């Protein structure tokens, strides 16, 4: 008994260490992000502005531009990391992410239709994207409801929708004016550049709404992963728990992609990194959220400073994430346990 207790203690301590390290990294990136750029602020200047001092320009730079962009990166990154971790643990598939399941495609399609065809702008587009993501998610869940709950049907249906939405997007982009086509392209990559307090609020609210379910998930996921029979004998209503967790993952993913677009690799990579650092077999929810936030904020810091800030954040996450995952696959002695 003592040995198991010691092991559990060691595992918990490792999880806490990893999470603390990730959090510290997020804070470091955050401080660099708000203080550097074309209009640098020193440490005392920055905290002065936070305290309400400084001129109007300083106030605008910090509260109007940098803080919303930073917070959006943190919140959307955390949401994507959590959503990816939930999907991957529930469906037992390391490739499961909002992209593969067509949820990001739904958001992108709705947003592109809203801007290019209906001529909407601003928060209305975000709302349309949120609706699109949720609509696709609802269709996938409805279509796979009669399944055994193993998730295969959910994945296959999602892949079908992902193809369908990308066909619709290609169709619209081909026919649009070239300027409009380029602005529509944003919705196929994703970026946190178009941040505002409204978008921060939307992602923040979905994260807060999802939080109780995430706490519930951290308790039931290890039990669900033992299989339905064990789960029921341990007093967990397997099917209902799965439903709650899928809806939670969908909510988190929809809130994030509605605002920042289908940023590649965060939902796929952050949970993989967290699991590798903490140890396989755990869902590593908190660490996945921190890793997602770190990935998105660090990528956005790079996006703001490289190539004159013209590159969308999603390009950087893919350019960083892909080589990392490839290295992981090439070097791992058992790549399939990723």
């Amino acid at each position, binding site marked *: 008994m003592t040995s198991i207790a010691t092991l559990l203690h060691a595992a918990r301590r490792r999880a806490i260490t990893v999470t603390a390290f990730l959090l510290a990294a997020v804070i470091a990136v955050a401080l660099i992000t708000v203080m550097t750029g074309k209009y640098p602020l020193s440490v005392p200047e920055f905290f002065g502005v936070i305290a309400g001092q400084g001129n109007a320009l300083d106030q605008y730079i910090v509260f109007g531009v940098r803080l919303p962009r930073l917070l959006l990166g943190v919140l959307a990154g955390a949401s994507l990391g959590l959503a990816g971790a939930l999907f991957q643990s529930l469906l037992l598939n390391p490739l499961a992410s909002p992209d593969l399941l067509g949820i990001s495609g739904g958001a992108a399609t709705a947003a592109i239709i809203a801007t290019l065809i209906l001529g909407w702008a601003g928060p209305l587009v975000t709302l349309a994207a949120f609706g699109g993501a949720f609509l696709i998610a609802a269709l996938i869940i409805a279509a796979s409801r009669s399944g055994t709950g193993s998730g295969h*049907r959910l*994945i*296959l249906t999602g892949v079908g929708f992902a193809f369908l939405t990308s*066909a619709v997007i290609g169709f619209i982009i081909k026919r649009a004016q070239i300027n409009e086509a*380029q602005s529509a*392209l944003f919705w196929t990559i994703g970026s946190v550049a178009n941040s505002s307090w409204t978008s921060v609020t939307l992602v923040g609210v979905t994260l807060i709404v999802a939080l109780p379910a995430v706490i519930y998930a951290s308790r039931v996921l290890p039990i669900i992963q033992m299989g339905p029979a064990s789960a029921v004998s341990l007093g967990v209503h397997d099917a209902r728990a799965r439903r709650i967790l899928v809806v939670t993952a969908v909510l988190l993913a929809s809130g994030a992609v509605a605002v920042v677009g289908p940023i590649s690799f965060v939902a796929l990579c952050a949970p993989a990194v967290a699991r590798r650092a903490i140890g396989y077999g755990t869902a590593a929810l908190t660490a996945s959220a921190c890793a997602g936030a770190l990935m998105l904020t660090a990528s956005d810091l790079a996006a703001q400073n490289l190539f004159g800030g013209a590159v969308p954040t999603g390009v950087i996450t893919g350019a960083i994430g*892909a080589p990392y995952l490839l290295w992981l696959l090439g070097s791992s002695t058992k*790549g399939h346990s990723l």
Partner: protein
Amino acid sequence: MTHRPSRRRSLLVILLSISVVIAIFASLAIGARAIPIPDVIAALTNYDPSNNNHLVVVSQRLPRTLIAILAGVALAVAGTLMQGLTRNPLADPGLLGLNGGASLAVLISIVVLGWSNPHVFVWAAFVGSGLAAVLVYSIAARGGTGANPITLALTGAALTAGLTSISMFILTTDQQALNNFRFWSVGSLTGRGLDTVAAVLPMLLAGLILAIASTSRLNALALGDQLAQGLGYSLTTSRLMIIGATVLLSASATAMAGPIVFLGLVVPHLLRSASHGDYRWLVALAAPAGATLLLVADTVGRVIALPGEVEAGFVAAFIGAPIMMWIIQGKKSVSV
């Protein structure tokens, strides 16, 4: 007696072959200008250049019909090979990074080499998809367990996403590149001449022969790596043969018709149960089915949005995706 699987499968091959012939005639006859079947036949047998109907059939519809048949066969067979290789019914040629590589190579040829002629994109696409496949295989083979199906799938997905990022970087910063690229990237059969077909045909045929030669290896691989080895097949040789055939086939198709993504996934998926898991039959069924689907998609695309056209790649996705979801619904359990 009609329940014997071999007879049912032969019947299905015959039915699919008939449907190809019907689809060919439909593709030659239907369009913005409807041409009666006797005129179509006359144009093929007794060509008269002064007859407008004959001119349309021979100079416009014949090349794209030919491309639809060849690209459809190539994509469907390539998809079959990929699903067999990775033992994953979700696999399609794009999984090896082929589409990502082709797209990036076309973009580089636009931006760096200053090309803008779609005819030369053919070669960029060919080189790009080949390089991507080599890269995916060599990275996946470095892992401790060799290029096993799951590592291959993950590596392909990762490389595709990485290459797409670079493509997106070019597209968001260079408007002219986007303008040239978006017309290539939609998967259309128009504007490609018979010279393209002639240039690509040897590679396509080589891929097809290699594919047919590797069907018995696919059957062995389906039993698992160890059993396949026990049956005397080298895993590395088998995988290299299958990947080589896939690259030749799908690169030829991409070169002729642009990246048409859905066909390679959906056609083998639809025919899996009819073939009873025998890859010799699956290839024989997938080839005519792929040709039919792409011919129908192209023909439908010509007439649903008159006076304009909808590209075959879109129509294939709009037809194929609902069919696939409907089939998933019908199955009791789906194994991935």
